[in-house]
């Protein structure tokens, strides 16, 4: 009930075009998530998270996303399931200053994981299930885990259906649960790695005709390092 997109640019010539490439991808996902949308962009100085209630294009125009450059970006369109439609409940969730997480699916034991995190002093600001997953991943990484290992811990601790996409600036990672019911497609060329919930979001990317396009398999962490 959500759409996710992401770009990890390998070719520096594309860096100025990060926003320009990402916004149409996000717009393609508008019907999957009409309630709210958001992006997280790494531009080499900091991670910028922009999210709001409403259709993705309006939010992107209002915030000049297409004009922004960078080397890694993820985006999300939300169809709210169990928590409210507000900016705070929108994705991406940023558990740390340089990590952002987007999610398509639904966790079935997030209340338990939320309590477990609280015991470690990790509080959530919303009742959203993705925030719990993002804080969990952030907590694992803060404790010294590599991002791929942190995502493998998600497979152990969090139950339910999910495709997760994480950006940290240095790493860009995708993970699907064991059921792999929530769609995801990855396209990789020498210039970039692109991820989306549906193929048509990737169709406008430069050189997509020659890209290696594949569906991530269940329970496999796909990670790219910069």
């Amino acid at each position: 009930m959500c759409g996710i997109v992401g770009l990890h640019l390998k070719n520096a010539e594309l860096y100025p075009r990060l926003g320009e490439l990402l916004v149409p991808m996000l717009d393609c996902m508008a019907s999957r998530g009409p309630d709210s949308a958001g992006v997280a962009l790494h531009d080499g100085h900091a991670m910028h998270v922009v999210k709001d209630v409403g259709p993705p294009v309006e939010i992107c125009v209002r915030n000049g996303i297409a004009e922004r450059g960078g080397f890694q970006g993820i985006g999300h369109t939300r169809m709210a399931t169990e928590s409210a439609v507000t900016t705070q409940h929108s994705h991406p969730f940023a558990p740390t200053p340089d990590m952002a997480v987007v999610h398509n699916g639904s966790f079935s034991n997030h209340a338990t994981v939320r309590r477990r995190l609280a015991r470690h002093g990790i509080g959530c600001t919303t009742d959203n299930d993705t925030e719990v997953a993002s804080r969990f991943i952030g907590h694992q990484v803060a404790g010294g885990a590599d991002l791929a290992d942190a995502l493998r811990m998600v497979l152990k601790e969090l139950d339910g259906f999910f495709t997760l996409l994480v950006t940290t600036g240095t790493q860009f990672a995708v993970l699907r649960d064991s059921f792999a019911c929530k769609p995801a497609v990855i396209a990789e060329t020498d210039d970039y790695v692109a991820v989306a919930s549906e193929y048509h979001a990737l169709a406008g990317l430069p050189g997509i005709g020659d890209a290696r396009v594949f569906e991530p398999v269940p329970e496999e962490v796909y990670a790219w390092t910069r």
Partner: protein
Amino acid sequence: MAAAPLPMDARRPSHTFGPQTIAAIQRMAEEGHYEIRGWGAKRVLPTFDDLVFLTASVSRYPLEGYRERCETRTVLGARRASRPLELDIPITIAGMSFGALSAPAKIALGRAATAVGTSTTTGDGGMSEEERAASHLLVYQCLPSRYGFNPADLKRADAIEIVIGQGAKPGGGGMLLGQKVSDRVAAMRTLPAGIDQRSASRHPDWVGPDDLRIKIEELREATGWEKPVYVKLGATRVGNDVKLAVAAGADVVVVDGMQGGTGASQDVFLEHAGIPTLAAVRLAAEALRELGVEDEVQLVVSGGIRTGADVAKALALGATAVSLGVAPLIALGCNGRTWVRDGVAHDATADYRALGTEPGYCHHMHTGRCPVGIATQDRDLEARLDPEAGARRVANYLRSVTMELTTMARACGKSDVHNLEPEDLVALTVEAAAMAQVPLAGTTWIPGRS
């Protein structure tokens, strides 16, 4: 000529002094003692039946029954024991003594537990050879009476359960009426045969959590820090007691609600002491959470658990496993109309009648005259129970309950039954909502919280 029936207004029963109360008072006046019986509380109580699951639909997704696995594996006692119990299912068999139960019954329970990959438990009477041999995983109880408790059996147990109380009679000790104290039972307990036995209600060598800590350490040292130590409580002041059991060093806390069964107890205890399992499980889980040990110390809940729905609800409210006593006995044949030998069914109705009861209503474990050979020490009666056939029935029952449990967990979108959580439940009554601290169905209202 029969007298004409009384008019309706002449037969208006008193609620306070109803026909059963009148009969009880008349019996006490006649006999000069209170009622002792088996089974457990018979009164209407708030139960797990007052809760329902919010299974998956559009916002959450269910798991498929065939292809998608739902884990039931359960580990008990990893907090401090080097050899925790690894069970295939979160359903165990509770402590019931050899003495209260016949040898064939104990063998059948042990074989059934072994067949489904779970543990069974000794009881207030020690460990019998047949029981040890039949049970792959056997929890050895340490009770106030210390009947049959010895270092040799301690060493060959798989876990140790210090019993402080029982849900059927918290604050009271066990009972075994003389007719069940056979020569063998008497020898195991170092008691005279044929004499009513009343177990102690307090441990002889420690009172309170500070000294319990020493006792637990002693048991650990005696068993090389290998075996999990459980502490079993009758559910009364659950929050305090669970916290104290944890402080004393328990690896596993067993909380037995007031619907728990017994071989023999005072009726006044069965009906008027302790709190329902529904309230107990929530209080116990809350206590573990308050201590921050809910992932380290496992909660086992017992008392009136019958179905996979009960198990799922107990797990959702915070139990890691449940323990069953009366239900496996029923699976074994308790309250059955017939007993079977060499494939031939024999009607037992007349034997129930001789006890003043009928199949479906029998609570006469205390008499030792069990018509189906389960709660007896009588040679002829116990021969009515074929341990092999009984074990098959109990294993069938436990497998069915497990399937009900995983069916419900899958429908809630869980790939592990332990991922059920209180948020998956709502209550049908205000009482259940208050006790379980889950919202009343159709509202967000949790009594006492908002």
